[in-house]
């Protein structure tokens, strides 16, 4: 058990952070609901970071470390599913989108070169054909699209690979959610430090301090559970980490908006980029009931 990054992990994160550096600055003025960055997506593909889990000495934990970090940028680009699931699919091209059903809005589907369609225990893999995707106009801060039917080139994965893909897809959600929560909280904390009311900064009020401190616990727990799930790479840990995040995020989203006042509801203020991504993750993959069923069947043999 070691909670510090190894020197290789440190090197990885340092170079990843320098790539992200250019995508940290908050956009000026109104930036719309979705702040997708084609440039960031391109850099991720070109830099090889999407393949980190296949690299010598690395695995899903390193992919999850990157996913958590990437999610803190206000700019959206798909990394989590591509880095976690990509290595399981021989030669699949990223970005990868995960569809938890046909006809439903799917994150990053309009950008995806590969889509994993999860249908019960079975997973189909396909390259979305042009014209087959319906773009979905959304207030959620991810670009979304929907597939009405499976593409003609869809192939069904064998049972073992299907199970592995489903597990990694949950780890991807958990890691992404952890990073989004961290960024949203950091932003709200900065706001209450800066904002003056009653002759002092809002952060001086204990009522606000305590609620933000409770969220700091949530962020730390969600991160550590996501990373441990990635290290273990098993369905129960993955579903449990995902469930923890899906349970906890509602409080965090609420509190971060609450303490940002009306400013936090504007499209000039970046908070929604993290909270409205989180809102889309809250019910993904069957939501709490879906994760709980997996945990209960793994731990207690429940059906």
């Amino acid at each position, binding site marked *: *058990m070691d909670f510090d990054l190894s020197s290789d992990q440190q090197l990885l994160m340092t170079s990843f952070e320098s790539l992200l550096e250019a995508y940290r600055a908050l956009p000026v003025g109104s930036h719309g609901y979705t702040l997708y960055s084609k440039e960031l997506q391109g850099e991720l593909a070109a830099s090889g970071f999407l393949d980190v889990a296949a690299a010598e000495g690395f695995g899903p934990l390193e992919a999850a470390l990157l996913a958590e970090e990437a999610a803190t940028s206000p700019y959206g680009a798909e990394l989590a599913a591509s880095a976690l699931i990509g290595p399981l699919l021989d030669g699949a091209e990223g970005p990868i989108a995960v569809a938890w059903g046909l006809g439903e809005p799917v994150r990053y589907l309009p950008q995806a070169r590969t889509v994993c369609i999860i249908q019960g225990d079975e997973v189909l893999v396909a390259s979305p054909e042009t014209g087959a995707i319906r773009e979905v106009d959304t207030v959620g801060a991810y670009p979304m699209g929907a597939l009405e039917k499976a593409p003609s080139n869809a192939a069904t994965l064998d049972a073992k690979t299907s199970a592995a893909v489903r597990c990694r897809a949950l780890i991807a959600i958990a890691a992404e959610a952890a990073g989004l929560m961290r960024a949203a909280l950091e932003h709200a904390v900065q706001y209450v430090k800066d904002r003056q009311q009653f002759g002092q900064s809002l952060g001086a009020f204990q009522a606000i301090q*305590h609620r*933000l*401190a409770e969220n700091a616990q949530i962020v730390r727990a969600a991160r550590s559970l996501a*990373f441990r799930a990635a290290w273990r790479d098993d369905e129960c840990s993955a579903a449990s980490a995902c469930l923890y995040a899906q*349970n906890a995020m509602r409080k965090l989203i609420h509190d971060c908006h609450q303490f940002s006042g009306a400013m936090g509801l504007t499209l000039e203020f970046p908070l929604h980029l993290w909270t409205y991504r989180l809102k889309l993750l809250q019910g993904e993959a069957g939501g709490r009931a879906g994760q709980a069923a997996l945990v209960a069947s793994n731990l207690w043999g429940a059906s």
Partner: protein
Amino acid sequence: MEFGWTPEQKALRQKVAAFLDAHLPEDWESIASQSPGSPAVTEFSKQFCPKLAEAGLLASHWPEEFGGAGASAWDHFIVGEMLWEAGEPRGPQYYNVNWIGPAIMQYGTAEQQEQHLGRMLKGDVIWCQGFSEPSAGSDLAALRTRAEREGESYVVNGQKIWTSYARLAEFCFLLARTGAGKKEISVFLIPMDRKGITVRPIDSVVGDGDLHEVFLDDVEVLESERLGQEGLGWEVVRYALNFERVGIPRYALALRTLNRTVAELQGSASFGEGAQIAAASAHSACEAARILVYEAVGQRMKSSPDTGVASIARLSVVRAENQVADFVLDWTPQLFVGDEQPMVATHHKRAISAGIAGGAAEIQLNLIARNVLGLGA
């Protein structure tokens, strides 16, 4: 970063599990339900701890020069986690090995070490912790109990409260004021049978033996019973409690209680979707507490400065503990009310004080706000 146990740590877990199988009697769960400070558990601990010592599991992490085996503090943590999960058969004696012993090793004189450490290693001595007072709870620095110097000794007057185990304890790790300044406080190691000490139990919902008042009226304490220099009290306390940074691994008993409750629901075919969501959520909260506690333990083991993870871990433990207690009340109220599953009562009695004993959860929130988030006036 990695989350695995070494083969040695796995073997240790097996050893402890086998030890518990062999040495916990059949009616252990109903004994344990009387709480760690009860006469029954205290008596039991005096049989159990010597056997634990013989198996090398009581204080293996103590340095060899003080009678330990110099094992890693991780080993001691693993043992502590498994014993708490089992209902804490060491009773009050976990104090001795966790922090009172180590404080005496660090600050004690050779005579004090000679007098106390051997007894602790033998496993038949009970200590209590005399910190809190009627007017000094969260604000411990407001304590009023005074130790006035008179030649080679001190005369102590004052009152302690909430003192766990006091009635059956042989010694007290006592904090008293030795000067007028707010921080002029010293630690004394005093025998509880000393003239002038009166102990009065306080009835409570946490169980018998866990809460007492201790009155100190003109108690004579020798200079040789002071631990560390006069006025060094805070430093000693800080040092000692650093070993308790993360508090009790409460998630372990909480998880066992949760598993037991789920089995009960399954037995009556009533583990449906609602219960599954609640159970899996409580489970994930316990695992969150576990992983954060491990992180805090790991940090202490590396002597890294606390980045706030210890406070976060404590808060996480309180949340998990309460979530499991609520799961029982929501889904199996009959287990809470009845006496068929004494372990459920054991858990509840302990869970109820999780956010208070050892320092209020709100104090941890203050620390997180200040040290982790950088908020504050």
